[in-house]
């Protein structure tokens, strides 16, 4: 499965980004996640902005994942068709950042930040008011 974006109906509300952050926080509570938790959790979905435009760049769970091919440690692997990331095996060499053509793997505060498809039930898809995000298999 993977998440696809319909840019024509995305209005840049960032709700996906907010709830992605919450889903990856310790408390899973929006106020705690934003106001109390330190360091603040990182959203996995990438929303690009410039003064006039915005654009969602989600991990595409590529069929031929360059991030995985580039990974020197075996931290990135596929499990039942889903890309998985084992943080314990990762040495932060950033080969995945170098290889991901969409820039969907981030490196923030010394950590790799990447989509985990929320156990196959991605919160970004659920919360999008416009159905701009969709799961396809």
């Amino acid at each position, binding site marked *: 499965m993977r998440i696809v974006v319909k840019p024509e109906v995305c209005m840049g509300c960032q709700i996906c980004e907010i709830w992605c952050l919450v889903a990856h926080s310790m408390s899973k509570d929006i106020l705690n996640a934003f106001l109390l938790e330190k360091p603040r959790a990182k959203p996995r979905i*990438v929303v690009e902005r410039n003064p006039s435009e915005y654009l969602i760049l989600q991990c595409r769970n590529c*069929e031929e994942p360059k991030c995985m091919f*580039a990974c020197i440690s075996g931290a990135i692997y596929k499990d039942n068709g889903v890309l998985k990331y084992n943080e314990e095996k990762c040495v*932060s*060499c950033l080969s995945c*950042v170098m290889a991901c*053509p969409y*820039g969907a*793997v981030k490196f923030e505060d010394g950590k790799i930040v990447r989509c985990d498809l929320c156990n196959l039930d991605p919160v970004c898809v659920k919360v999008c008011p416009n159905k701009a995000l969709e799961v396809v298999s």
Partner: protein
Amino acid sequence: MKFENVIIGNSSAAIGCVEAIREIDSDADILMVSADRQAYSRALIPYYLRGKIELEGLLYRRQEFFERLNVETKFGIRVERIDTNKKEITLENGEIVGYEKLLIATGGKPFIPKIEGLNARDFFTFQTLEDVLRIKEAVEKAESAVILGAGIIGLMLAEALVEKGLEVKVVELADRVLAPVLDKKTSEIVQRKFAEKGVEILLNNTILEVRRNEKKILRLKDGREIETDLLAIAVGVVPNAELAKNAGIKVNRGIVVNKRMETSVKDVYAAGDCVEIFDSIAKTSRPIPLWITAYMGGRIAGFNMSGIPRDLSFVTAMNSMHFFDYYIITAGLSNSEDGEVISRLEGENYRRFVLRDGKIVGFIIAGKVGRAGIFTRLMEEELEVSGFKDKLLNDNFGYVDIPEAIRWNLLKEKVKFGVVRDAWI
């Protein structure tokens, strides 16, 4: 004994190959023979030396992986000979194994320059598990180290050794560190990082002679003599191509392969550090000893060995490196002066692009490296970037900065071949 697929080696290229074969064909029989006892990542040995990972963390794929993928393994055994007429390989224990398709993925080995008085016992290399275990032991008793070669591997070793409290010197023939991939500005930042940690980098210099008392005495090109407990040589990697050469397979600097990873001999493929390959950007064939090149080459070989014709369409040098938490990603003709060069340096954040005919042919991103893969992509697509080239220099450059008409073309779903589906861990 005969197998449909025989793979020599069990590292990056070899694993890429089995994974591809299994995507196509769950039944084809596969034998993997390797001198290494386990499939580990050579690229992780610096992290092991630094104590960032345990020995077990070096394993790139676990032993169960081979069982799950139904791959027969003969690990810890060297291949002595390939007979391409009989389509057989001979192992060091005398065993003979037939193949229908063969992949040679024998990797690379450290290049050792001729130095007067140098014995094999005098120095370490930093390439294999055995190397790192020997270094780890030697470090316990050593106070000082000299590393010949300020390339990525030499500098990673220098970082690990200085962290362990050794007094470290690096001797480099070029006038700056990492000269093959970095430009002057980035080299200087890296040199400063090492200087701050007390590592002395001796540029424009080399070791001419080694003598020894309790320590090793190195006579340098500039006439100076320095003493050291530990000496490591890391001046480069060369293809390990003897096996192929002795079998009459065409070898220049590395084993010669085409885009399908076929060698000059039918049904024999090669991939990884042992080959020389056409660099799509530099437009010349050369060894590109990097993990992703090895994995992708092995993967493409696997498809072709399984009867699915596929080309390795884009290859160039791509490095992701870090020293004392300073990150650098480079690709293509990263430090070339030939073309239009645009760059921006702000503190230690640096971006440099080399454009030819309005297309990116190389880049260096250092400091904030996030999302550098986008540039690798633009390079691979040979996209005309002149219209928005200034934006490339912004820290947060993204697809949103690419004109809409081109952008959607880049972001639309591509139907690609091959489904990566197994649980690989």
